[in-house]
């Protein structure tokens, strides 16, 4: 039973993610998480003012159910399947984080520096999280997909646009991790 609580190996996890996508394809759907953000925007009635959100969001309800399930899965995994051995990242990474003043994982999924509840008292951290979200929302809609829609679904169906998008994800990520994060922290 210990294996369930430890970090799941990449080959098991990757395989299961592939199966999740194939299940949705078998259900006659596709795999993509970021489009739920559009659906949520559309649900608020934004379609009346901005034509991009003027679509039948009810046809996307299935994907919101996937999101609901994912939230429940996250809850169960964090509260009932976690272990102090988790998030055992490279010691070199930890050393670099220490230089930036970001706390080491010690079994946690997220650094307290950015995600502890006391960040609500820091305008800078609030802005970082909102700004990061804006980049994610704007970028995924502009590129019409995220890690699930392009990196997994798009590459699995051998589509060149998705390869361009995934290379773009990595260009952006490398610039942020190597050049911008050290300036922010």
């Amino acid at each position, binding site marked *: 039973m210990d294996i369930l609580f430890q*970090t799941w190996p990449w080959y098991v996890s*990757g395989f299961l993610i*592939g199966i*999740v*996508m*194939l299940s949705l*394809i*078998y*259900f*006659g759907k*596709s795999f993509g998480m970021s489009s739920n953000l559009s659906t949520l925007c559309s649900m608020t009635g*934004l379609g009346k003012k*901005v034509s*991009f*959100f003027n679509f039948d969001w009810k046809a996307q309800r299935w994907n919101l159910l*996937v999101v*609901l*399930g*994912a*939230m*429940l*899965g*996250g809850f*169960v995994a*964090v509260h009932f399947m976690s272990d102090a051995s988790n*998030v055992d990242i*490279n010691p*070199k*990474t930890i050393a670099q984080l220490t230089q930036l003043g970001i706390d080491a994982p010690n079994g946690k*999924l*997220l*650094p307290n520096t950015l995600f502890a509840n006391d960040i609500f008292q820091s305008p800078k951290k*609030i802005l*970082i999280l909102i*700004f990061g*979200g*804006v980049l*994610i*929302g*704007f*970028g*995924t*809609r*502009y*590129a019409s997909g995220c*890690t699930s829609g*392009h*990196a997994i679904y798009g*590459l*699995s169906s051998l*589509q060149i*646009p998705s390869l*361009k998008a995934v290379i*773009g994800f990595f260009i*952006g*990520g*490398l*610039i*942020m991790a*190597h050049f911008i994060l050290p300036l922010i922290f």
Partner: protein
Amino acid sequence: MKALKYIVVGFVFGIVLTKSEAVSWYRIYEMFLFQSFHMYGIIMVAVVTGVIGIQIIKRRNIKDIKGLPIEIITKEAGSTRFWVGGIFFGLGWALVGSCPGPIFILLGAGFLPIILVLFGALFGTFLYGLMKNKLPH
């Protein structure tokens, strides 16, 4: 029953992404520093599984759950939107360490500050919708 199968698939997705730590800010940072194979391994195995599965579906003409032909959605042609949009998303991904799936998963797990990322992401989506016709695609 119709609804339940989507919740179950989502549930498995949420557990796998959490237990593989693909939802972890640390794992994303470590990936972009090229200091671990873990995340690359996850993506590669998921893609290889997907490629094989989709090829089997196509070659054997497998029908979906309702008996209808399975269609793989074709991404529209173009370049600018994928490069530029991709870079924007990559910047955000490495900054807050979560892509759209994990935003919801982490929120479900009870990490309250993620709500700020979600608000930002909804606002970013709204901004794109607003500016769509003025942007090069």
